[in-house]
């Protein structure tokens, strides 16, 4: 290195050193929030990710059995030691009443396992000594099946791909990953439905919102202010209030049907509540301001002289609009549509109250698996799928628009 280079590096370091206190001071102001979000926001999401691959049940309930299975090659017939270990584990499980937990977990992979495990646990409670193997086989001949023990052994691992695979309609069988067939394959369908509804809502908000944004920019100030109020007030109103309004409006004996029949547009009352049509209408209504505002803020920055210049250069009105004006509004359209699409993916309340069973989105299934089926792993795995899709689009948004461009009203 030459002296000049050394000097340059020294100067560079001096600059970094001089900036350090200011950088540290700036960062320290944001630090409380960063730490808070790390604990109250990032940690729960990470915990969700862990839950999606976590596999504690078998390890906790069957430690001895797993140890006995360690040397098993997966082919040969199992002998008494494994069954004895299994019996011991089940006795402990019966005492701690954790057998049901194990049964539930294994039941995800082999149906009927729940009752088999519970029956076996009840049986071993009454047995003092072995040999156990024949007792188990007497109880249920499937205790001899290779598949059963393979799955128990596989679930000895701390992490399992089971939930993630299930959330993507995949399953692990004989060491390979296959697509689930028939009525078991529901989740990709749900994901596709979620994307479809979000896309539809985005499209409708764009079609309805673009002209509104345009009119907001050309209207006289006072009128534009009033119109803006009409856009912002719904945004401020509780999502639940807006959904409630739609529940009421969409009833079979509700106001929309009253109007339609009064105008003789339909002869019989339409089923609107608990349908996809109703869900999309309500979601479009709720998302509309999110699409309008970014488009409006971009349109406002386009000088009126642009269109005048196009006209003076000989462009007819429609061509001036489509070739000069519309392309310049594109950043706003992208920002608004991505925002609405991202937010639409996570809808829960509106589909739950306005949609029918066939209109439930990923969020609703997550809720069902948490609250009704108590299958946290699968709920978490579905959450991961939703999160990945959302974050992918958020990254796109950050690339195209930027987080510092998000404004409120």
């Amino acid at each position, binding site marked *: 290195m030459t002296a000049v280079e050394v000097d340059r590096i020294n100067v560079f370091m001096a600059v970094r050193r001089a900036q350090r206190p200011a950088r540290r001071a700036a960062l320290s102001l944001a630090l*409380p929030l960063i730490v808070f979000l790390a604990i109250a926001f990032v940690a729960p999401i990470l915990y969700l990710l862990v839950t999606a691959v976590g596999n504690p049940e078998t390890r906790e309930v069957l430690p001895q059995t797993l140890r006995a299975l360690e040397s098993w090659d997966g082919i040969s017939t199992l002998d008494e030691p494994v069954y004895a270990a299994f019996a011991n584990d089940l006795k402990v499980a019966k005492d701690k009443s954790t057998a049901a937990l194990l049964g539930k977990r294994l039941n995800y992979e082999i149906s009927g396992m729940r009752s088999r495990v519970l029956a076996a646990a009840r049986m071993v409670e009454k047995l003092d000594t072995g040999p156990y193997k024949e007792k188990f086989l007497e109880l249920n001949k499937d205790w001899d099946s290779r598949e059963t023990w393979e799955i128990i052994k596989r679930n000895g691992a701390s992490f399992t791909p089971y939930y993630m695979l299930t959330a993507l309609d995949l399953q692990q069988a004989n060491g390979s990953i296959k697509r689930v067939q028939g009525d078991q394959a529901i989740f990709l369908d749900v994901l596709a439905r979620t994307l479809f509804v979000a896309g539809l809502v985005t499209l409708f908000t764009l079609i309805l919102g673009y*002209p509104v944004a345009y009119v907001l920019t050309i209207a006289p100030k006072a009128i534009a202010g009033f119109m803006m109020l009409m856009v912002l007030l719904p945004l401020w109103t509780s999502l639940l209030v807006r959904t409630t309004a739609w*529940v009421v409006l969409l009833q079979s004996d509700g106001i929309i049907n009253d109007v339609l029949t009064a105008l003789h547009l339909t002869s019989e009352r339409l089923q609107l509540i608990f349908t996809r049509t109703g869900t999309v209408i309500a979601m479009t209504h709720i998302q509309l301001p999110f699409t309008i505002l970014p488009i409006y803020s971009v349109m406002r920055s386009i000088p009126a002289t642009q269109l005048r210049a196009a006209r003076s250069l000989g462009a007819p009105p429609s061509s001036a609009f489509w070739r000069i004006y519309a392309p310049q509004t594109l950043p706003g359209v992208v920002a608004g549509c991505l925002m609405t699409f991202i937010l639409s993916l996570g809808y829960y309340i509106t589909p739950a109250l306005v949609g029918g069973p066939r209109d439930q989105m990923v969020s609703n299934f997550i809720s069902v698996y948490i609250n009704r089926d108590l299958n946290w792993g699968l709920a978490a795995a579905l959450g991961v799928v939703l999160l990945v899709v959302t974050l992918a689009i958020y990254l796109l948004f950050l690339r195209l628009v930027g987080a510092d461009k998000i404004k409120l009203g």
Partner: protein
Amino acid sequence: MWLPSYTTPSERLMRTLVLAFAVAVLLFLIAPLFIIVPLSFSKDPFFTLPVREYSLRWYADFFGNTRWMNAIFNSAVVAVMTTVLATTLGTLAALGISRADFPARRLIMALLIAPMIVPIVIVAVGSYLFFGQFGLTNTRIGLVLAHTALATPFVVITVTATLSTYDTNLTRAALSLGASPSSAFFHVTLPNIMPGVVSGAIFAFAISFDEVVVALFMTAAEQRTLPVQMFSGIRDQINPTIMAAATLLLALSIILFTILALMTRRRVK
């Protein structure tokens, strides 16, 4: 209307159509909100217009029911605590981010805004599972923590927006006149960014007061908030008492919105 003089007849027609369309969309935006108001004052338990006879019976129902009153109380407590926490954390962070020397601004901004973006169910389930480990589910504290995470991006955004119009020479002037950094902040910076801070606080309050999904997961009957009470009401059997509750929430939104609009106007001036 609002047309330059060089417009052609076909252009006039086009513009009139666009205007009519926009007005229709604005009606679509605003009408559903106000449909619930007359329904909540109807004497009949039906959701049809016109209302045959007005009465306050659903409001009497609402205010006479300890469940609803308890829910309002819970919502208010949680929202106030969330507001205080989110406004403090968010304002401090915005002050840091707005400094020229803030490192990795884009990355940290993306993190701070993320709670607005991540699907609410994921926040709800994550909080339910994670806070459950510490016995914080079915407590108000747990709900406040989750709501604060959801509300801080709004505070960060509003305060950052105000700071972008704040003349940093004001702080420099205060320092050059002998004020310590902290007294420069409290006597000069804070009074001047107050509109942004108050807007952020209003946002935080509204977010918490209206939030359903996280509250559904994080609360039991005892901590039930107003939106949760409404949600379960609609799920079971929608009744006009819910219309009364919705109308009251709408009124609250309008009040908060008005305060905010007044603050913004003052700021523009």
